[in-house]
């Protein structure tokens, strides 16, 4: 039976809050409620955006930041999946590494930055390492959790059918952990994105983080705000893409439909 569509069923409902927010902001700025040379209005920001695009500056910074994120994310998430799988499957490896990882994990990514600069200088290596570390932890934790939480009843079924270890791993444990692994990958890409911006803010001559910090130094608040919002928009786009991928790769997963 078809349910009558409610207002909450339409996707465009998500637009009214941002629209209202922008209108109010523009109105308050035009009315002189704040100094637009410090906090620009949406109109000024949009002008800066158009100019940055026309000059090709924005595209360049976005491309560089994205390239760093993708590289670091691939290293970090692969390492997370690998180590997580080993720790999830082998109690001995889990015991051996749990204390070590337990101490390293709470260290904020930013704290590693001076360390990597000392080791590798202010070049790509240190940034990519920071991004990889940022992506690594959530992937690791979720892979381990996912493997540990696979329902023992499924493993029992495989035992009744006398399936070999590798079949149990490949057909039951990893698919059973897939949803959790995906969650880790999603949190991981978020972390990687945060890491790249942090690294670029601190020490870089390119990328979106650099765009923000250099615009501040050059007293160009419009470009600065463009950088800030582009970060948000790209982060949202990545997340949406991953959710779409998850529906595509794990079509059987119906537990978290919204």
């Amino acid at each position, binding site marked *: 039976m078809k349910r009558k569509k409610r207002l909450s069923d339409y996707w465009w409902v998500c637009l009214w809050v941002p629209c209202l927010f922008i209108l109010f902001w523009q109105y308050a700025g035009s009315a002189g409620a704040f100094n637009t040379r410090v906090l620009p209005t949406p109109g000024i920001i949009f002008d800066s955006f158009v100019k940055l695009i026309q000059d090709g500056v924005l595209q360049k910074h976005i491309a560089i930041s994205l390239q760093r994120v993708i590289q670091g994310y691939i290293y970090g998430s692969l390492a997370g999946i690998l180590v997580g799988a080993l720790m999830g499957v082998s109690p001995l490896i889990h015991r051996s590494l749990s204390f070590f990882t337990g101490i390293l994990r709470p260290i904020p990514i930013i704290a590693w930055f001076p360390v990597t600069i000392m080791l590798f200088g202010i070049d790509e290596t240190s940034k990519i390492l920071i991004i990889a570390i940022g992506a690594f932890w959530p992937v690791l934790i979720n892979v381990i959790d996912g493997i540990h939480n696979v329902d023992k009843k*499924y493993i029992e079924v495989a*035992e*009744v059918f*006398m399936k070999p270890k590798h079949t149990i791993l490949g*057909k039951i444990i990893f*698919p059973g952990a897939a949803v959790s692994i995906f969650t880790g990958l999603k949190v991981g890409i978020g972390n990687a994105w945060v890491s790249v911006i942090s690294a670029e803010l601190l020490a870089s001559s390119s990328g979106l983080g650099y765009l923000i910090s250099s615009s501040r130094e050059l007293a160009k608040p419009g470009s600065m705000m463009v950088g800030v919002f582009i970060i948000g928009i790209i982060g949202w786009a990545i997340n949406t893409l991953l959710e779409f991928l998850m529906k595509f790769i*794990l*079509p*059987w997963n119906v537990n978290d439909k919204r």
Partner: protein
Amino acid sequence: MEKENVSYVQIHNLNKSFAMKEGELKVLDNINIDIRKGEFICILGTSGCGKSTMLRMLAGLDTLYTGEVKVDGEEVKGPNPNIGMIFQESRLFPWMRVRDNIKFGIKKGVSKEEQAELIEKHIELVGLKGFEKSYPHQLSGGMQQRVSIARSLIGNPKILLLDEPFGALDALTRMNMQQETLRIWEKEQATMILVTHDIDEAIYLGSRIVILSSRPGKVKEIIDVDIERPRKRTSKEFAELRNYIYNGFFAGMDNE
């Protein structure tokens, strides 16, 4: 397959206890059952009588007991390719389509073509043609349990253990599934051992009914069901046997 008189499954002097904080809890007390090849045995008892535990021992999933559990003359020490098991919940893998779930039950060493043939045959056997590509969550509870049965049968087990397989289904679906199970039993000639707390189910299906008491589980009586098949749930003999079992073993429990 000809009927043999020698017992195929032997359970002799079987005792099982669980270690508890307060000491040992006896769940099975000196169980003796002999099952012939091709029989449909129903083990009837209330919950907590250890009937599922006994089934897990036959499946080789629980090997901590004293006494003898033998299948075809050999002690059960672990899972055995000749023994299939169906659980109360279908336990289908949610990430596999119906076809792949059923395929999971195929033993190794079967060629690709044979596999396809077997799958085809078993999907038909449980009446699920057209649902090969569905995921378990798209099926009803009864259909899921059919897939589970197909997954077990495809490995061609000599013995099928069923642990309250229809307990979670509604009454009509349950009757339907019981009929299906009988049909499959007659067709496949496997030995079936089904655990249940449903008196009607036991009478409808069983060649013999083993009645277990509760805490600890003890064999109270083994009844030969002489009612001719196909059995009618509304027949006089059916009612008589139901009354006999109910009055003899389960009456009084209502008021407890």
